[in-house]
């Protein structure tokens, strides 16, 4: 499942997409995020499988939370969460 966590408002679209079929539950992204944006959740109600997701606390201010990792003047910064994911399950829309 493709889960797009985040929001859009007048200033743009800010989503972190996690592909739960690729996510292997290793929790590397959770550990490496400097702002504790990511958490592990039981996404599928019928399975007891943990996958990565954006926490409720950060979802609505993801642009703010991720700002330290996305300084201006850097077109494609290497994001720690993306780099840590060996399954290539995480993508940022901005």
């Amino acid at each position, binding site marked *: *499942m*493709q*889960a*797009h*966590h985040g*929001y*859009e*408002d*007048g200033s743009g*679209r800010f*989503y972190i997409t996690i592909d739960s079929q690729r996510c292997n539950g290793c929790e590397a992204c959770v550990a490496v995020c400097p702002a504790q944006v990511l958490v592990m959740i039981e*996404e*599928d*109600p*019928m399975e007891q499988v943990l996958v990565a997701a954006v926490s409720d606390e950060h*979802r*609505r*201010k993801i642009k703010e939370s991720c700002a330290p990792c996305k300084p201006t003047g850097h077109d494609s910064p290497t994001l720690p969460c993306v780099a840590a994911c060996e399954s290539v399950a995480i993508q940022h*829309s901005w």
Partner: protein
Amino acid sequence: MPTDTHTTEQHKEYWRWQENHWHDESIDWREGAILSAGVDVGSVSSQAVVMVDGRLYAWSSRRTGSNSPNSARDAMTWAQEHTGMQVQDIHFIVGTGYGRVNVPFAHKAITEIHCHARGANFMYGNQVRTILDMGGQDCKAIRCDDKGKVVAFQMNDKCAAGTGRGMEVFADLLQVPIDQVGPMSLDVEQEPPPVSTTCVVFAKSEASGLLRQGWAKEKVLAAYCSAMAHRVFALLDRVGVEREFAITGGIAKNTGVVKRIERELGFESIKSGIDSQLAGALGAALFGHALEQRQRAKR
């Protein structure tokens, strides 16, 4: 919030009209093997659905009060009214929605995304593949398979654009009852350009300017509904739209937004005989049924 009493009372009347409950007198719940229920506590309205062996038995829909646990309890009590059923009789209760952690009598909490997909599959049939839910304070786009299992989703609950509250702000500005917004917005000879901004606050200033320029209310509403439809369409863009396509939630009743979305898509949304606001609670009740079934199978 604007303090115009006239509008506030109209709002109250609108929500009063919305409060409904129903149960199927032809079903005797005491003969059911599995009783399940779903309670969907939203920021604006709450619903409860009771199922007997996976068949729709009873439901209720009302305003969410300021206290979530009470809202959940009230929704449940109201659905069960005149049935003789008590909360304790139900084998598996699932809470969902914004206030799902505040359903004290629920056995499990499941996110609204999953409940909506499951509920839509029940309401619209197994051909539904894309669901757009526009609630009081959020907006979601969901792709599902023929079993109602989520394949992709995107939710926005940060920004008022595309939500019920965003629409209410406009209804207040123009002093139009919310259920008239749709029809009035369609009462234009030519579709005006949409308001240039997505942000409800800035759109409101823009609309005030348009009114001063002599635009009729209908034209301003058309411009706003057009911008909202476009904005919501962009939300769908990321998950992609596959038919059949269903719209649920309060704004599903706003013909002005619905028709414009259908126009942009080039096809109509699928309709259901069941109230569009029940999708979440329905799905929750279905999950309750499935989880109870599985629990019993393990024993």
